[in-house]
């Protein structure tokens, strides 16, 4: 029997550092193992997660601050879809609607910052941001079927 869509998601909470990337990736990989989705789909999930998590690790908290990231994920639609929610307690930041551009930053830096978020959009079926109290909530959805 497939679990219902309302299945309680699995959660993992770790420090908002680059060292947490691998444990988060392993955690999600473990969740989708049984879906046996194609390599291309696994690559997309890995890339979108990295870009989203690196963004938070770099920008959400003040340097040296003890920030956290909580990732929740579950399979939906009888295992045909992966739902991932990434929360952090950093400053309000909507990556899809960035505020004033930092005109003092080098052009390269701004372009690539934009590229990371652009890749998140390209690799997901759906990517949404919302502010929930004092928490940033990023929701990503992936289709686990073979890509067309």
């Amino acid at each position, binding site marked *: 029997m497939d679990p219902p869509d309302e299945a309680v998601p699995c959660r993992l909470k770790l420090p908002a550092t680059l060292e947490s990337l691998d444990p988060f990736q392993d955690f999600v990989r473990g969740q989708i193992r049984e879906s046996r989705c194609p390599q291309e789909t696994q690559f997309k999930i890995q*890339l979108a997660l*990295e*870009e989203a998590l*690196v963004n938070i690790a770099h920008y959400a908290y003040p340097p040296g601050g003890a920030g956290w990231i909580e990732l929740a994920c579950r399979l939906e639609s009888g295992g045909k879809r992966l739902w991932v929610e990434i929360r952090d307690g950093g400053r309000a930041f909507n990556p899809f609607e960035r505020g004033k*551009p930092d005109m003092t930053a080098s052009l390269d830096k701004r*372009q690539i910052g*934009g590229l*990371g*978020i652009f890749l998140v959009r390209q690799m997901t079926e759906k990517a949404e941001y919302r502010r929930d109290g004092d928490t940033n909530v990023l929701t990503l959805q992936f289709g686990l079927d073979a890509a067309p």
Partner: protein
Amino acid sequence: MALHVKVWKQREGYFVVSLNGKLDSQTALECEAKLVPLLDGSAKVVLLDMSLLDYISSMGVRLVLKTRKALEAKQSRLIMSNLQPQIAKVFEIAKALPPQAIFASVAEADRYFDVIQRREIEKQSQAGKLT
């Protein structure tokens, strides 16, 4: 999994860099350290061989673009070979966009355009004053 970088001289002034593993936020710095010695102008061509590279993130793309820029400043070239499909796709996404399209929002792109245009107009008007 990490990244293994091998650099060798293929010909005089022509270096091959073989990337094996993942080029991402965790490995880009160590990779950059291995590329820096090639950026002094003695290498006329640097080839990034990506046949064993199976993952790249925006940090990796950024390093490739930065390296290319540094080489071009010395009239040298960066070339790449054997991109796996998923790697090629990421470069395609990055390259298919004209630079101004990589901004995250229309407003940001607008402002960037405005600044460039204003500079251009200022330059022209100054040139006009001089003649």
